[in-house]
C-alpha cells in the first residue's frame, strides 16, 4: 500500500467541511437557476468541494507514501486536555465578573487556557505560545491599555524560543525597544484609537 496520510487527512477535512456546509445551508432558500436564492451558490460550492475532497481521498490510496508527523502520546493527550480545559474555562469565565462576561473575553480566556495547556507538549509549544500571546493581547488591550497588552504579548511569545528563556535581559531590552517603537508608530504617527495606559 502506498498510503498518503497527508492527502487522506486533507480529503477527509474537505469532505467533512462540505458536509457541515451543506447541512447549514438547509436554512437558506435555493431559488431557481433563473432567480438564485441565497442558498444556491453555497449548494454548488459545497457539492464541488465534496467531490474534490472525494477525489483527493481516492488518490491518497495510490500516490503515497507521505506519512504525517508522528504524534507522541503527550501531544495527543495535551491536545484533548487543552480542548476540554479551554471549553470549561470559556463556559466558567463569565462567573468571575463583568469583564469576563462582556464581548469576546470569555472565549478569549477559553482559547488562552487551551493554548497554554497544549504548551506542555514539546511539539505544540511554538503554536501554543504564539497563539496564546495573541489571546493575551486581545484580552488586555481594552482594559489594560496598549502598553500592558504589548508587554504581555512579547513576554508570552518569547517563551516560544528557548534562547529567550535563558537570557531574560534580552527579552527586557526587546520589550522596551518594541514599546517605544509601537508608541512612536501607532500612537504618535498614526494615532490609532486605543487606550495607551490601563483604564480603571
Amino acid at each position, binding site marked *: 500500500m502506498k498510503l498518503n496520510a497527508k492527502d487522506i487527512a486533507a480529503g477527509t477535512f474537505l469532505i467533512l467541511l462540505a458536509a457541515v456546509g451543506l447541512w447549514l445551508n438547509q436554512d437558506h432558500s435555493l431559488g431557481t437557476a433563473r432567480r438564485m436564492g*441565497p442558498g444556491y451558490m453555497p449548494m454548488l460550492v459545497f457539492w464541488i468541494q465534496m467531490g474534490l475532497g472525494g477525489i483527493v481521498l481516492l488518490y491518497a490510496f495510490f500516490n503515497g507514501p507521505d506519512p504525517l508527523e508522528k504524534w507522541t502520546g503527550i501531544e495527543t493527550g495535551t491536545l484533548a486536555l487543552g480542548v476540554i480545559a479551554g471549553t470549561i474555562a470559556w463556559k466558567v469565565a463569565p462567573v468571575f465578573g463583568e469583564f469576563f462576561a462582556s464581548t469576546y473575553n470569555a472565549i478569549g480566556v477559553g482559547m488562552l487556557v487551551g493554548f497554554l495547556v497544549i504548551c506542555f507538549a514539546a511539539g505544540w509549544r511554538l503554536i501554543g505560545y504564539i497563539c496564546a500571546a495573541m489571546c493575551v493581547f*486581545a484580552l488586555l488591550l481594552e482594559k489594560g491599555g496598549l502598553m500592558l497588552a504589548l508587554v504581555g504579548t512579547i513576554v508570552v511569545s518569547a517563551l516560544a524560543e528557548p534562547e529567550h528563556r535563558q537570557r531574560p535581559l534580552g527579552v527586557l531590552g526587546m520589550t522596551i525597544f518594541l514599546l517605544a517603537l509601537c508608541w512612536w508608530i501607532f500612537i504618535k504617527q498614526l494615532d490609532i484609537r486605543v487606550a495607551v495606559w490601563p483604564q480603571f
Partner: protein
Amino acid sequence: MDTIANLAHGFAVALSFDNLLFALIGALIGTAIGVLPGIGPVATISLLLPITFGQPATTAIIMLAGIYYGAQYGGSTTAILLNLPGEISSVVTTLEGYKMARNGRAGAALATSAIGSFFAGTVATILVAASGPLLTQVALSFGPADYFSLMLLGLIISAVLAQGSVLKSVAMVVLGVALGLVGTDVQTGQQRFTFGIPELSDGIGFVSVAMGMFGIAEIILNLEKPEARSVLKTKVGSLWLTKEEWRRATPAVLRGTVVGSVLGILPGGGAALAAFGAYMMERKVSKGRHMFGQGAIEGVAGPEAANNAAAQTSFIPLLTLGIPANAVMALMVGALIIQGIQPGPRMVEAQPDLFWGLIASMWIGNLMLLVINLPMIGMWVKLLQVPYKFLYPSILVFCCIGVYSLNNNVFDVYMTVLFAIFGYMCNKLKMEPAPLLIGFVLGPMMEEHLRRAMLLSRGDPMVFLERPISASMLAIGAIALGAMMLPNLRKGKEAAMAG
C-alpha cells in the same frame, strides 16, 4: 497622444511630496523584507493593510506596490552574497549568483541584478501604461457571463500554476470561495453561515485570513526550522561589469524581460514563476549555457530581470479587469475595497489619479531601488545580523495592533488566531494557502456575476457557452486543467518549481 498626457498627469501625481515619500518607504520596507528570509511580501502587505486605512487610496497603493517590487530587488542581495534566497522568486538566483560571488564577482552579480531589474521594470511599466487603457476598453464590453468565466479561468490557472498538487490547489480555491460565502447575501439580505455573530455579517475579515495564514502561521513554521544564518564571507568587490560580462548579460536581460512580462500577466503567475521560467530558458538558449553551474552571468541577469518584470505586469489584470493574478494582488484588491474602490475596468476612468499615478510611481520606485540597492548594499547586509528571535515578536505585535485597529474590535484578533492554526494545518497537509486567498477574494464577485448572468439568460446555463468571450475563457481553462493531467507536463512543472 492621450497616453502621454495621461502619463504626464501620472507623474504629477506620483511626484507629490506624500506619494514620493510613501513610494520610498514602500521601496525601503520591500528591500528590507526581501533581504530578510522568513518574511515575504504577502505577510508584510497584509500587516500594513490596516495602517493604509487612513491614507488616500493612491498613496496607499503606491506604498504597497513599492513593497512588492522592492522585495524582488532585496531578495537577490542575500541570494548572491549568502546563497540564501530572501524570497522564493530569488531561489534560482542563488544557483549562479552565489557561484559568481565565490569567483570574486559578487559586485558584478549584484550590479547585473539591479540594472537588469531596473531595465525590466521600466519596460514592464511602459507595457502596463500601454495595455491598461486598451484592455479596459475590451473589458467594458464584458457581460456578467464573460466576467464569471474570466474569473473561473483566473481561479483555474492560479490553481494549475501553484506549487504542489493541482488537485489540492483546486480544492483550496473552492475552499476559499466557500469561506467567501460567509456574511450577508447581497440580494436578499439574508445572513449566511454567520452563527448569529454580528461581526461576521460583513463576511470573514480579509485581513484576518491573510495575516493568519501568511503572517502568523509563517512565524510558527520559521521557528520550527533551526536558524540557518551564515556570515558574509565573500567580498562584494567592484560593481563594474567587464565588457565581456555586458555582452553576455544584455541579451539575457532582454529575454528575461519578455518571459517575465508574459508570465506576470497570467493568473497565478507572478515573480517566482517568472524567475524559474527565465532560468530554464537561459539554460537552454543562452550562449553561456555551458558555463552554467560555474557562475554564468546569464543565470543571474535573466531571472532577475524576469522577476521584476513580472512583479510589475501582474498589476495589469488587477488594474484593467479587477482580477488578482496572485496572492499579493489579492491583497491589493483588499486594500482597494477597504478604500471604497471597486477594482475593475471602470477604475481607469473613475480613478485616473490612482491608475496613472501608480504607473508613474512604479518607474520612480524602480529608480529609487537602483540607488537604494547598489551604493547602500552594506547596510542591507548588516540587517541580516538581526536574529529571528528578535524579529518574530516584532512581527507578532505589529500583526496584533494592525488587525485590531482595522475595526477596533478584538474579535478580529481571535479570528486571526483561528486562521493561523488553519494555515499551520494546511502547511502540514501540503495544501497551498495562496489559491485559497485568491478564491476568497474572487468568490463573492463570482456569485454576483453568476446570478446576474443566469437572470439575464432566464435560467439557461448555455449562456456561458454561447457568448464567444465566455466560451473561449472556459475552453482555455479546460485545456489548462487537461494539460496538467498529462504526466510529461506535470513533471516539467515540478522540475521548474524545484528549481
